[in-house]
């Protein structure tokens, strides 16, 4: 099994949204806001519409804070909204807010974990460990003669 480890401290705010979209196959577009609510980076939307996307992410947490008055428990850090055409996930820390539009079929727990992991990488430089499937040992290269005699049906194969 091979483990790919990113270099610590290399994630910049400008690249954070892109990093999230790389990490999660179900992420369609993402936006990062700083503590003041200003756009820090976006991915999946053209630069001309990134500010509009950031404004919607700001509005999302404003609405969450308004709804939170009726909800028991601590202040929400993450929000998930499932609607017909897709899903919106957002996570915030005291310094950053990261919001993503995902596919409707996305697994909420995975998407929220990815959001937290990317924010942790941005804030603390904590690298995200990604694992890939173990590769089978490659057999010796077959010669053309062997390949020609090989048949998917064992009964029809060349007799040794």
């Amino acid at each position, binding site marked *: 099994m091979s483990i790919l480890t990113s270099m610590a401290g290399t994630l910049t705010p400008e690249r954070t949204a892109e990093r999230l979209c790389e990490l999660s196959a179900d992420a369609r577009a993402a936006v990062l806001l700083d503590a003041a609510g200003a756009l820090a980076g976006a991915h999946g939307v053209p630069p001309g519409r990134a500010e509009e996307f950031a404004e919607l992410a700001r509005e999302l947490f404003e609405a969450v804070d308004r*709804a939170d008055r009726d909800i028991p428990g601590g202040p929400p850090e993450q929000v998930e*909204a499932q609607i017909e055409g897709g899903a*919106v996930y957002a996570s915030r820390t005291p310094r950053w807010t990261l919001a993503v539009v995902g596919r409707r079929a996305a697994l909420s727990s995975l998407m929220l974990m990815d959001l937290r992991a990317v924010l942790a990488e941005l804030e603390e430089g904590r690298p995200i460990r990604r694992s890939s499937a173990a590769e089978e040992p490659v057999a010796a290269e077959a010669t053309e003669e062997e390949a020609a005699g090989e048949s998917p049906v064992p009964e029809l194969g060349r007799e040794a």
Partner: protein
Amino acid sequence: MKERRKGPIGRAAGIAEGVAATVRRMQREREPRVLVYDETGYARLVQPDGRGYERLLDVADRMVALVGEVEAEAKPRLGRRPEGDDEAKPRRARAPAEDDDEAKPRRARRAPPEGDDEAKPRRARRAPPEGDA
């Protein structure tokens, strides 16, 4: 444990129950919902009659719509073939060209030759002469 039905009626009822359950599940999954999570990861469902629910859904809807628009705009650009791509032309060439002589003999074969009397009774059946009635 679920009791297993026997016989064709029981099997059909089982299939119908499965289909109904799938439809119900799909409808439930399509329903909009909003959840908020606190710092410990504890999830709370925002009730549809709760404060801010409508606004949350509205904002989420606008975000999804924006991304959908961007993707829709990007798709035709990605799908456009570069100019001078000759591989696309054979498909368009299916329509008969002006100098395409292959299609004409087929039509000529189908059309009855002039002076062919066998074709006339067919026409007479569709539109009878005025004096017939």
